[in-house]
């Protein structure tokens, strides 16, 4: 057809052109940071407020349910959270019910916080890392009642009974709250099995609260649980992590990534505008 307008061409443009532009737009800002300011959203704020309530000696759980593959979106929030737990004088239990590559994730967190946190913390006393256990929700249900039944030893091979931090802890009731980093539904397993689960807790233990700091995609699905009070905080992806980094005062990868996010989002919005203008222009023509 000879009478092709620019809009027809745009509508038929090879998607690979877009893909290339997108990839370049995401990459280049890392070399020339802009450093735009960001506002803290209420859900991140309440997550941070939750972290601030940790009293010295209280134990919280970091559940790494996101893999190495989700570092871009999930890792910064975990780093900032661990940093804040340390600042509060809290103690930390870490395990994973999601991914078998969690060892690499935990090693990376330790590398990034080597000078800030881990020069000070003693493994077994201030924090303990149990590694990965499969079984998903079934596993979460088992952990609720009997941690030793699932994790007989930590990754160093020390028996759980011999870990000072775990001395009084064998069920969910001794844990103040769960910080769940997710790419999937693990936070909902904790809500169902721990927070609302069968109350089998020995003594007068309270079911722990749950907080989510997963991928941004989870924000929509988790918002209903956040509003209904099942989650006390919600850190959504790298954007939420950038807010958290601002709150805890530790500039990390999320803050740096925000420039890429800005540029790529503007690109997408422009593409959408273009697509719509094109659609209306050609529609007018046909009439």
């Amino acid at each position, binding site marked *: 057809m000879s009478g092709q307008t620019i809009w027809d061409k745009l509508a038929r443009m090879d*998607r690979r052109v877009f893909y290339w532009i997108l990839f370049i737009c995401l990459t280049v800002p890392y070399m020339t940071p802009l450093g735009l300011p960001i506002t803290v959203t209420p859900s991140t704020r309440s997550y941070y407020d939750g972290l601030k309530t940790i009293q010295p000696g209280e134990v919280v759980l970091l559940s790494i349910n996101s893999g190495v593959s989700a570092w871009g979106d999930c890792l910064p929030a975990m780093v900032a959270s661990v940093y804040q737990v340390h600042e509060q004088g809290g103690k930390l239990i870490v395990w994973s019910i999601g991914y078998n590559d969690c060892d690499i994730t935990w090693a990376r967190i330790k590398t990034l916080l080597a000078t800030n946190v881990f020069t000070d913390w003693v493994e077994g006393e201030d924090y303990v890392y149990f590694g990965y256990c499969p079984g*998903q*929700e079934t596993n979460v249900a088992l952990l609720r009642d009997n941690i030793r039944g699932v994790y007989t030893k930590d990754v160093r091979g020390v028996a759980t009974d011999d870990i000072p931090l775990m001395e009084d802890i064998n069920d969910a009731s001794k844990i103040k709250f769960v910080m769940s980093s997710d790419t*999937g539904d693990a936070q*909902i397993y904790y809500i169902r099995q721990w927070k609302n689960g069968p*109350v089998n807790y020995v003594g007068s233990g309270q079911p722990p609260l749950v907080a989510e700091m997963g991928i941004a*995609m*989870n924000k929509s*699905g988790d918002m209903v649980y956040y509003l209904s009070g099942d989650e006390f905080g919600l850190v959504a992806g790298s954007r939420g992590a950038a807010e958290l980094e601002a709150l805890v005062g530790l500039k990390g990868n999320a803050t740096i990534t925000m420039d890429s996010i800005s540029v790529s989002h503007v690109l997408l919005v422009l593409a959408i505008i273009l697509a719509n203008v094109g659609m209306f222009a050609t529609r007018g023509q046909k009439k």
Partner: protein
Amino acid sequence: MGVWIVLDTKFVALLLLIASFALFYAYMKLAQGGMKIKVRTFPAVAAIPEAIGRAAEMGKPVYYSTGLGQLTLNNQLNGPQTLAGISILGYTTRLCAKSGVKITYFTPIADSLPLVEETMRNAYLAEGKPEEFDPTTAINFQNEQSPYLTASLGWIQREKPASSILLGGFYYESVCIAEAGNIIGAMQIGGTANTHQLPFLVATCDYTLIMEELYAASAEISGNPDVLGSLKGEDLLKFLVLALLGIGFLLALIGNTSLIGLLRL
């Protein structure tokens, strides 16, 4: 031994569960007794024969997947979706067997393989062509999410299926597989009860089953009155929830919280 029943929100959940089972059962009985139940038609289900017909015309295969399903049937959120997807797989395979279309099913769920193989084998058997079923071409297992995605992407580009059907517990693979299908111009039918993948299936597929429609679709395919009866019961439950919402809403407007108190116990 402690107290058997604690009067809390969970007790309300139990009551809801019992009430819903009673409703399902009652309506299944009523349906068996001859009560006529009409289920809203799902365009996505009606499109399956069309999708197979298209493949037969073009002489191309059909891609079918039930999604990641968290890699096991033993998952409360995804297991039932996988099962619903396998139910519809049986129907689809029969259609394929009838019109001589090749169907390839991709899954990362090892423990569903016995069900899948039996379902597909029986579908071929029902069409009188048991010899045409070959598990090594009909079923393609991949151990994890990303390998399953890579293999699907590669297969779709190489084999260029005429139609692609994605029904089950999907995760991020949904948008990739659906876009890959889009690139080669396949007709696509999608459906999941995982809220996080709905936007993509709606955006990329020609027909979509949203949330419970996935569960209801297998009931519609079977056309069995008992099963349809349970859908009627489900609708009544929806009315119950709607009534709670409506009454609670009106009460809230006048500042009354008694319904909330009742639900919380």
